[in-house]
């Protein structure tokens, strides 16, 4: 398989087809990321299109730092684009789940990934964004606070509430499955 370095070399060598190869290679990955922020298929399409136009037109400025760095760059751009889109639609951070005692953590091992992503997509927008940034973009609460213009405390509480809500949804899903 073509390495990221080889792909980038082909692109910088002016090979137009290499742009398509980059898209083919990462569009599925980008789509999954996009849907995790914006569950609506039509909306995420626009975000993805803008992200790839941005990626492909700015590929010359990408700073290669080893295999995998291109993939994480793609992920960052898609996440940023999705957040900007949500911000534009007035991203709000609310508390919709009352604090309750911790319950058992449901096992995610047996649950199909598309169901898990679907459940993440059902989280309220503010929770979802913070949760994704923390879990998948691996940002700290400090960085999330900076990125979203909220306090570190808000980021932290949004995350824990999102986590608790997601766990409850997973438990509901599991119990529903067991009833069937």
């Amino acid at each position: 398989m073509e390495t990221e370095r080889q792909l980038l070399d082909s692109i910088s060598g002016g090979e137009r087809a290499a742009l398509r190869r980059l898209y083919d290679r990462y569009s599925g990955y980008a789509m999954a990321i996009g849907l995790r922020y914006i569950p609506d298929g039509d909306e995420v399409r626009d975000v993805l299109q803008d992200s790839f136009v941005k990626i492909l037109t700015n590929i010359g400025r990408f700073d290669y730092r080893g295999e995998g760095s291109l993939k994480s760059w793609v992920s960052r751009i898609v996440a940023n684009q999705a957040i900007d889109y949500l911000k534009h639609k007035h991203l709000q951070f609310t508390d919709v789940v009352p604090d309750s005692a911790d319950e058992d953590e449901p096992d995610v091992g047996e649950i199909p990934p598309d169901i898990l992503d679907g459940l993440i997509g059902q989280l309220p927008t503010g929770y979802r964004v913070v949760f994704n940034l923390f879990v998948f973009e691996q940002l700290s609460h400090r960085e999330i606070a900076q990125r979203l213009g909220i306090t570190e405390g808000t980021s932290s509480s949004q995350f824990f509430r999102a986590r608790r809500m997601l766990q409850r949804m997973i438990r509901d899903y599991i119990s529903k499955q067991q009833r069937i």
Partner: protein
Amino acid sequence: MNKDKWTQQLHDKLADREVAAPDDLWADIEAALPEAPKEKGTKKSLMIPLRRWAVAASVAALLTGGGYLWWKADQPKPNGQELAATTTVFTPQKPESPQPEAERLQPEAEPTLPELETPQPNTKALLSSVKPISSEAPHSSETPVLSDKLVPAETSQESSSSQASESVSETANPTDETKEEKSADVTIRQLETQIALLTPKSGEQAALSLYASNGLSDQQKVYGVRMSDEMAERYDLSQYMPVSGARTRAAANTIYLVGYEERQKHYQPLSFGLSVGYPLSSRLSLSTGLVYTRLRSDFTSVMNDMSILRQQTLHYLGIPLNAQYHLWHSGSLNVYLSMGAEADYNIKARMVSKGVEQQMDRDHWQFSMQGAVGIQYDVLPQLGLYAEPGVKYYFDNGSSVRNFFKDKPLNLNLQVGLRLNITK
């Protein structure tokens, strides 16, 4: 990041998941892409061209200078006042056909003889001072060395030095070849050159210059990032403070975030321009023109291991007004003082982050004052290379745009250029 086990498990399960993107998405993306080769080309040619422009401008100036001399060469040589132009006629003609030049020289030089014969006594008196000059062939062969230092760009260096060295061989050759017959002729020609170099300095000259200018250093700074007041309020800082009783407010104590900083780097300003000089008296002249300046800055926000780079480019168009006072000259060398002011208008401001252009306000008018010492070396009587090391002060224009001028209002700069002296 202390992610718990459950979260980590979720991450591992979903992080590399893929979902098929819509089928027709690529077509839309491709339609929105600029032509690939064009994109690649423009990026490269946009980065370097400013220096190239300076080179091109210098070459253009050289050509213009050559053209001007060429034109002058075709003019009849009626009297001694035109001497400045006539003597140097040899120089531009040389590069065309070096071989038959020696023959062609003769008839051309002849007509100037009778004119100069009249002031015989003068010539004789000057002859003694001319001798050392003629043996000063190295004087002109030094030209390339000097021009190396003065001309901003390689191409113009080459062309100017080659032109200069050709003019050297020009004057040297006839002396060798036709020594006995032409010695008087040559001496007179050198005399003419000497007179030509001296006469225009009386102030009866307008000047056209092309120049490039650079600051002498980049400017770099690192700032800490303050904790926001509301965030600081969340921490009970008072318990750590030695002063008892006083309720410590975050606003009163700046708290810098660990691992956060903002770096800014201002690259040295780069300008080039065109100016026209007008003599007021034999020592004083005024010059004005049009100057383009480009300022580039990098702002990097660092948040632990993540950094965001924003690149700012500002383009200014300015009008300088300078007065030059000629201090001293010897041979082809001129030393002068220059003082003046400049108004720059920000024609374009651009801020780019991660390849995405962000909105940015243009800078206000920027006023500055400058003083410099200039050294000019005339490669030809009509064409000089000059360097002006100087000091420039930029007044605070009150705008929120951060740039080199705000960070370092007083700075040293070096302007180098070509000056075309137009004899009136």
